[in-house]
């Protein structure tokens, strides 16, 4: 009988032995080494053992009886020190074993990030039963655990430790969890789900050190955050365990190099499992390992077999977390996404289609059809005829094309339509039968779609299915093709459901694209930062280039730079600095603007940080001449110099500009203060225009002097400068909170009515104060000079990467 030695009793070699003994019992006398003091168990089920939902006994694959029945000589708990290829022996700690054929199945070793403190007691990797038991034991004392790595293993460890009663924080380097298997939208849902379990998740979190004297006490992050920790689990990844192969002089790439028959560079030595490298590919999931095991068993028995890597799928073993991911998300020509979101059920599905076949799928919250989709991916099935209903899975396929109306018509009366107000279909139908014939009437009578508005489309479908052609849908303009929601729906949704991130809005608003488009993203970014100044982080990549680079892009791709001149007042020093900058950066055009300041036109993108730094040094800040925000406050000279002046209009203008600068608004906002009714500052056509009179200040709003020409309307008249500022701020804040993105104030006021605005800004003093306070909170975050910030933190981004030299080499 030929002698087969196997190093490593893991899932791959275990399956290989099963195949071998099933096909040709007695073909080989097998000696099995395992560094762990036990035989083969189902390693991928360790997570439920950690959580307590399974016992170790339940996940043992091969027990002593199985090894005995197959006459396997077990050398468990014994490390192999080396392979002597010349003598064809394996050297173990307790002696040599000769082989005719040798299988290396040493699996993988956890990757340990090279930070100080990684060797402290209490820092545990997560690979085998001993690690699992160590974590279980550590969790028995309670306390805090920090899991480094938000991939499959890390998250399963986090969920298990949380169930065992620990306070758990997951640190993840990337922007969203499981980034290799999930897209951002699914990663967001997973994060929400884990946070619902009381697990803290920190993304973009980079570990600098693990702290502690005798054992681990805390984890220090790059940003200086310190997290107390009684247990640190390192689950950042694995690498093939190749030491024996390297020492034996076998060919090793990232893993042990093998051919399609699992043969290494030595014809009598084979490798299988996580330790191998096949054409540059490594393997961490179980399905290809089993395929390899089968091929290896055949090869050992002299049969023809070829290993072909197949598409893989991933599931997370956390009870109650239903996610699925398979196939390829990398892009290529002519790939297309089909996205389905059901906010009510927390469901997200995305299919990636290429050449009429599904090549990738991600699902969260509903994985019922995952096997079917996986089958479609593996088979490369032609889905062109199913395309319209593909995302609904196999249940919808095979029959006549499905009309979405039919699905609504088929809903039972008790089916819930409006989740916010708990309105079911029967209630809506009753209201319709009672005379409610349009959306507004249904909303008024049943409250359906009255809160977040995401069910508006469904309510309309119920109207249509009940009334037939007696129902005429009111034409509404959605934000863009990514969603059915209007801007108004979107603003209401963000407020009513306290949505504080883009992925949260995409999910709740059933976005049909993975990450929006150039139309919805800037609007969404503004709505989020206006409603949640403290919680939401401004996303530069969702801004138009002008706001991202804090400069106005010109038609030739250069930019204009305009420093702020408070109330139109400047000094010789400032003028000198501007002139110097214009010389230094060869600015082709210098222009005095209608907003009482000086514009430097034609600056190259890469020069921006330097010119800003020069202007900053002279005490000037960005004029925000590019932003949807406060532009200028135009003034006349007022009482200081003018014989007609009634108040200090310049002083008020400067105060207003200092109060409002830096704030983001739905569209640009221009102010003016005129010192008398002669109106030299042209205040009567501004967004907010103040005319000083003897008895105080007349505040006009909603003027326009652009595409439309419109005189301001009187918001109110006040006696003091303080009140004038208060009313102005309250008006701007109300506009920020309610207007549609890219509506100037005059358009917004026309929609809501001046009386509605007056009620809140002038009459209701408590509301006026709330608006002023809310504005102050926002300014505490956003009133900062973007030039200084970008010069300090982002100047690198403005420089192109210069490859001009390489062609000459």
């Amino acid at each position, binding site marked *: 009988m030929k002698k087969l030695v196997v190093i490593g009793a893991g899932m791959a070699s275990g399956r290989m032995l099963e195949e071998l003994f099933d096909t040709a019992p007695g073909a080989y006398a097998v000696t099995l080494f395992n560094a762990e003091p036990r035989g083969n168990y189902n390693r991928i089920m360790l997570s439920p053992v950690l959580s307590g939902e399974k016992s170790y006994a339940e996940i043992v694959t091969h027990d002593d009886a199985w090894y005995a029945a197959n006459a396997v000589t077990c050398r468990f708990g014994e490390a192999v020190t080396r392979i002597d290829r010349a003598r064809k022996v394996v050297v173990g700690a307790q002696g040599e074993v000769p082989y005719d054929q040798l299988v290396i199945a040493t699996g993988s070793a956890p990757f340990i990030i090279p930070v100080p403190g990684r060797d402290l007691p209490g820092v545990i990797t997560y690979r085998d039963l001993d690690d699992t038991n160590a974590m279980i034991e550590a969790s028995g004392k309670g306390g805090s655990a920090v899991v480094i790595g938000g991939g499959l293993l890390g998250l399963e460890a986090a969920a298990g430790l949380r169930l065992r009663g620990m306070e758990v924080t997951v640190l993840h380097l990337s922007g969203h969890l499981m980034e290799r298997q999930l*897209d951002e939208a699914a990663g967001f849902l997973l994060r929400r789900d884990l946070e619902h379990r009381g697990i803290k998740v920190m993304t973009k979190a980079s570990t600098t050190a693990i702290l502690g004297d005798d054992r681990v006490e805390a984890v220090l992050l790059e940003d200086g955050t310190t997290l107390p920790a009684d247990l640190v689990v390192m689950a950042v990844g694995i690498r093939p365990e190749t030491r024996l192969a390297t020492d034996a002089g076998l060919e090793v790439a990232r893993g042990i190099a093998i051919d399609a028959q699992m043969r290494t560079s030595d014809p009598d030595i084979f490798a299988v499992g996580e330790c191998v490298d096949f054409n540059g590919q490594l393997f961490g999931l179980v399905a290809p390992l089993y395929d390899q095991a089968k091929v290896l068993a055949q090869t050992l028995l002299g049969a023809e077999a070829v290993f072909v890597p197949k598409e893989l799928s991933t599931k997370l073993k956390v009870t109650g977390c239903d996610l699925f991911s398979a196939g390829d998300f990398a*892009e290529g020509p002519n790939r297309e996404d089909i996205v389905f979101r059901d906010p009510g059920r927390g469901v997200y599905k995305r299919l990636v289609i290429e050449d009429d076949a599904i090549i990738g799928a991600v699902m969260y919250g509903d994985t019922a059809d995952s096997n079917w989709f996986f089958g479609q991916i593996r088979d490369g099935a032609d889905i062109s005829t199913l395309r319209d209903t593909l995302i609904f899975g196999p249940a919808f396929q095979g029959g006549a094309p499905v009309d979405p109306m039919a699905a609504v018509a088929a809903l039972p009366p008790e089916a819930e339509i409006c989740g916010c107000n708990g309105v079911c279909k029967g209630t809506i139908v009753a209201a319709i039968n009672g005379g409610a014939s349009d959306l507004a009437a249904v909303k008024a009578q049943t409250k359906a779609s009255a809160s977040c508005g995401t069910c508006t489309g469904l309510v309309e479908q119920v109207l249509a299915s009940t009334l037939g052609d007696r129902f005429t849908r009111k034409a509404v303009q959605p934000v863009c093709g990514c969603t059915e929601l209007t801007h108004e729906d979107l603003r209401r949704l963000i407020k009513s459901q306290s949505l504080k991130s883009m992925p949260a809005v995409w999910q709740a608003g059933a976005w049909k694209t993975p990450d929006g488009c150039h139309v919805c993203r800037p609007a969404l970014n503004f709505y989020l930062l206006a409603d949640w100044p403290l919680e939401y982080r401004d996303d530069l990549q969702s801004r138009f280039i002008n706001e991202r680079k804090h400069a106005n892009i010109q038609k030739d791709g250069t930019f204009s730079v305009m420093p702020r001149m408070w109330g139109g007042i400047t000094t010789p020093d400032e003028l000198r600095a501007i002139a110097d900058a214009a010389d230094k950066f060869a600015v082709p055009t210098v222009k005095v603007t209608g907003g009482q300041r000086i514009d430097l036109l034609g600056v190259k*993108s890469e020069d921006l940080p330097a010119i800003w730094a020069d202007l900053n040094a002279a005490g000037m800040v960005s004029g925000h001449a590019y932003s949807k925000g406060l532009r200028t406050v135009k003034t006349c000279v007022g009482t200081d110099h003018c014989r007609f002046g009634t108040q200090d209009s310049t002083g008020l203008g400067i105060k207003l500009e200092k109060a409002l600068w830096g704030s983001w608004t739905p569209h640009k906002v221009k102010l003016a203060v005129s010192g008398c009714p002669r109106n030299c500052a042209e205040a009567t056509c501004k967004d907010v225009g103040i005319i000083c009179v003897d008895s105080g200040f007349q505040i006009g709003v909603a003027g326009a002097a652009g595409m439309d020409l419109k005189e301001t309307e009187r918001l109110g008249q006040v006696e003091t400068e303080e009140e004038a500022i208060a009313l102005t701020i309250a008006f701007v804040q109300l506009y920020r909170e309610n207007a549609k993105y890219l509506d100037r104030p005059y358009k917004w006021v026309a929609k809501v009515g001046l009386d509605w605005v007056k009620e809140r800004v002038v009459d209701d003093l408590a509301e006026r104060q709330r608006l002023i306070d809310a504005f102050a909170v926002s300014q505490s975050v956003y009133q900062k000079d973007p030039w200084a910030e970008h010069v300090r933190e982002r100047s690198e981004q403005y420089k*192109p990467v210069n490859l001009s030299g390489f062609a000459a080499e």
Partner: protein
Amino acid sequence: MTTWIDIGPLDAIPPRGARKVTTPLGCVAVFRTGADEVYALENRCPHKGGPLADGIVHGHAVTCPLHNWVFDFTTGEAQGADTGRVATYPARVEGGRVLLDAARLQARSQAA
């Protein structure tokens, strides 16, 4: 022959952002998607010459900052009603570094 040249770390490009790369005879825009893939396109919109590196990145496309033409990263084709095309160049990420195909960039410069 493919010669990959390293243009810097992936982190130097913000997610859904871009970086301009100057080459001997013109600029290339290197984009990073929300899913951390990279693509390289000619930086000049065929419509009015807008710098694509300054556009908004969404899905696998960029919107030109000047007049909102949308270009697909994989084909370089303008989407929707607009017709036009920008050149695309091989780009990839390896070990956290962004690599461009030098040979293709040279070919471009010779052709230009």
